């Protein structure tokens, strides 16, 4: 008797407490409540981390965070410009991602676009009239970015090589190329840096930030329309969802891969142009500044929808600018702001789990009486 009772007890203990169940489609506002809760939770955790590691209080943490991002008019403009540049790279990788072509070489493609721009500015700056110079800069930067992306695409299309590794490696080649030309064209000689290049700077529209924002706004709308309403966009979706289906209905998969990745690289090239001629007026190995990688997160968080991506790009730039000020006010270095951004992105991506699944508590078994 006793042994049997024990056995029953033991078996009941082993019953799991929770199980995971998939949700059906969730109402959109519920999904957004979960996302907002995730951001709030992330902010609380990061303020706790700050308080624990330093002697700042949480209120100060949040106010500094906001001041860092939108504290002054200039900061608001910088925020808008940085958001738009990050968004542009994200827009570039999105068509490739929709096609399940994992282009993680945006960093290098942006750099190549920038390198082409700066070459024109340095080599042709005093030889061509300004409008002609702009034209040449646009064409070469677009071509440079596109070619840098096209090489892995050709290999993928014809020999099915792994595009992830290939595009990644192309980044390092681009970085080293930029390093070489920085040395070659260094001003002053031997410094290893290219100083400000005067010729070929893009004109300021209103102020120095607005041009970027206008260009990116236009690309956002175009990309949305392209992906949603054009035949090309439809082909991209079909190839991405199932190459077999694409073959079955007679889509030329090779052609679609190469065409789409060309577009991806071309937009990266434009980003390089805006960064070099519209913003830095020079180039360095850090010109792309990791945007090529952050853009991957932006694109995914925005579910490959250009309009959602505005939001995710804004969030990431807002946090990084805000936490920059937090760490400098507290006398900490850049790594600290990376920690904060990391915590918040972790929560935002993690909350998708709760949008797709839910935890269900197992009903307690009633005691068997016999």
């Amino acid at each position, binding site marked *: 008797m006793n042994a049997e009772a024990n056995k*029953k007890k033991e078996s009941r203990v082993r*019953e799991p407490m929770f199980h995971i169940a998939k949700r059906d489609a969730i109402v959109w506002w519920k999904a957004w409540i979960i996302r907002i809760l995730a951001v709030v939770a992330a902010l609380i955790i990061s303020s706790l981390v700050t308080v624990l590691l330093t002697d700042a209080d949480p209120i100060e943490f949040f106010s500094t965070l906001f001041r860092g991002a939108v504290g002054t008019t200039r900061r608001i403009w910088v925020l808008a410009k940085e958001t738009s540049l990050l968004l542009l790279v994200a827009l570039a990788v999105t068509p490739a991602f929709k096609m399940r072509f994992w282009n993680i070489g945006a960093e290098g493609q942006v750099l190549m676009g920038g390198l082409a721009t700066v070459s024109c500015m340095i080599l042709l700056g005093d030889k061509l009239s300004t409008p002609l110079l702009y034209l040449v800069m646009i064409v070469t930067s677009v071509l440079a970015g596109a070619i840098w992306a096209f090489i892995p695409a050709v290999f993928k299309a014809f020999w099915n090589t792994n595009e992830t590794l290939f595009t990644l490696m192309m980044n390092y080649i681009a970085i080293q190329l930029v390093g070489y030309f920085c040395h070659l064209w260094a001003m002053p000689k031997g410094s290893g840096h290219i100083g400000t290049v005067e010729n070929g700077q893009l004109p300021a529209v209103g102020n120095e930030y607005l041009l970027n924002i206008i260009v990116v706004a236009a690309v956002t709308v175009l990309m949305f329309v392209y992906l949603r309403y*054009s*035949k090309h966009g439809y082909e991209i979706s079909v190839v991405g*969802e*199932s190459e*077999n289906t694409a073959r079955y209905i*007679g889509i030329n998969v090779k052609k679609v891969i190469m065409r789409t990745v060309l577009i991806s690289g071309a937009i990266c090239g434009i980003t390089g142009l805006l960064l070099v001629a519209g913003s830095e007026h020079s180039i360095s190995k850090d010109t792309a500044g990791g945007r090529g990688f952050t853009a991957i997160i932006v694109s995914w968080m925005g579910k490959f929808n250009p309009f959602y991506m505005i939001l995710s790009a804004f969030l990431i730039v807002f946090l990084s600018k805000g936490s920059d000020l937090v760490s400098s006010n507290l006398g900490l270095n850049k790594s600290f702001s990376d920690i904060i951004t990391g915590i918040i992105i972790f929560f935002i991506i993690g909350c998708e789990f709760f949008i797709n699944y839910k935890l269900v508590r197992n009903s307690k078994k009633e005691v068997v009486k016999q």
Partner: protein
Amino acid sequence: MSKTPAIELKGITKAFGTKVVANKNVDLTVYRGEILSVLGENGSGKTTLMNMISGIYFPDSGKIFIDGREVVIASPKDAFRYKIGMIHQHFKLVDILTAAENIELGLHEKFNLKRAASHIRKIAEQYGFELDPMKKIYEMSVSEKQTVEIIKVLYRGADILILDEPTAVLTPQETQKLFAILRRMRDDGKAIVIITHKLHEVLALSDRVAVLRKGEAVGTVNTAETDEEKLTELMVGKKIDLNIERADPVDPQDRLVVDGLNCLSVEGVKVLDNVSFTAKSGEILGVAGIAGSGQRELLEAIAGLQHVESGTILYHDPATGKEENLRDKTPVQIRDLGVRLSFVPEDRLGMGLVGNMDIIDNMMLRSYTKGAGAFLKRKEPRDLAESIIERLEVVTPGATTPVRRLSGGNVQKVLVGREIASAPTVLMAAYPVRGLDINSSYTIYNLLNQQKKNGVAVIFVGEDLDVLLALCDRILVIGGGKIAGLLDARTATKEQVGLLMTKGSHDAYHVKANDGEVAE
């Protein structure tokens, strides 16, 4: 005969998400020394129920008793402890190992293959299996692999065996053999559960039948006291006429003449070997064969998706009377020739449709290139989607629902509906009723018959020989990429077809071994 219960289920409920209730308050008893069939349509919750007994899923509520004692089965290991063994539909074997190695794997600290092999031979002898313990899995036929799976659970001491659709992959002859073995196990006092949706097997094999409908146990009957009609009524919930209509072909003309077709797989293995046949207008040509005998390659070669080494595929255009060779043409080129060739592939969501797209966008797959300009026109596909939903009674929240959210039968209606919308002259369908419930299956048969009446040459690749014999006009039997025979479906018997299927089948097994893994 006194019956002792081996497993009792009481009030078992399992839900996936909020809408899908796979099992609702199910009571079920399995006795020792009997064969119980669990019968139900696809999606009625048979496999889910059995997975809860074998520890793969955990019930939301309800109790399981083994030999009268309440137990908690939280993992396959627990199930194994209670001597429950499940043979899944998809085999879980390591291809490059031998039968003995697969069976012994993970059981003992020390690997003693000799002892294992002799034990395996003893089990095989006891129940009448034919198995060489030292044969590698990749050299085995499907039925041999199944034997390994069954012996594996017996070797682990199981005395409650659950088999999930064990005959789905077997020829009629192999099925008979399996049934004989299962009867021997029953007489040995084991409790045996087979999950199935084939009525004649239920009647031939089992002692009792438990019927599930939409996740609920709607009744348990003694096999001796029931028949096909009664079981169908229990299973579907209403009376259904199980006869498939078959009209005589009207004025059959040669539509598609395939001659000496040879194809290689990606690995360079011959998958089609000198295949020749003619598909005629106004008739349904059935294609029978063991899975992976070249059926898929045959259809894909005609559709322009499979490279052809040699041979011709001549299409006779009924409108112009012209002849076109479709060999080595792409799907687009075939379409541009004005050949209205429709193809319902085996892999519905991986080839025929895009699961994440809605019904409208899936309609567009065939038509999006139409019209000038760079932009899509969604008006026509939307109308088509709506008319298919209405005409074929597709159950869906709307035309903008992603097709992966639809049930198997509705997915197939969308696909077949799109393919016949273009008024084809040739319609090829690969396993079009696989996984469908009875009602949807009959809808599909009717659609095919309708096309036949319209003078379409229909090629129907099927696996259920009863259906092939009832629906088709002629049956082409294919084995190992070769044509094994051509039968008149009105006079042929199942045994004849089965014999032809296995003729020269050893080549077929090799092809299949490769195929099966890719598909998984």
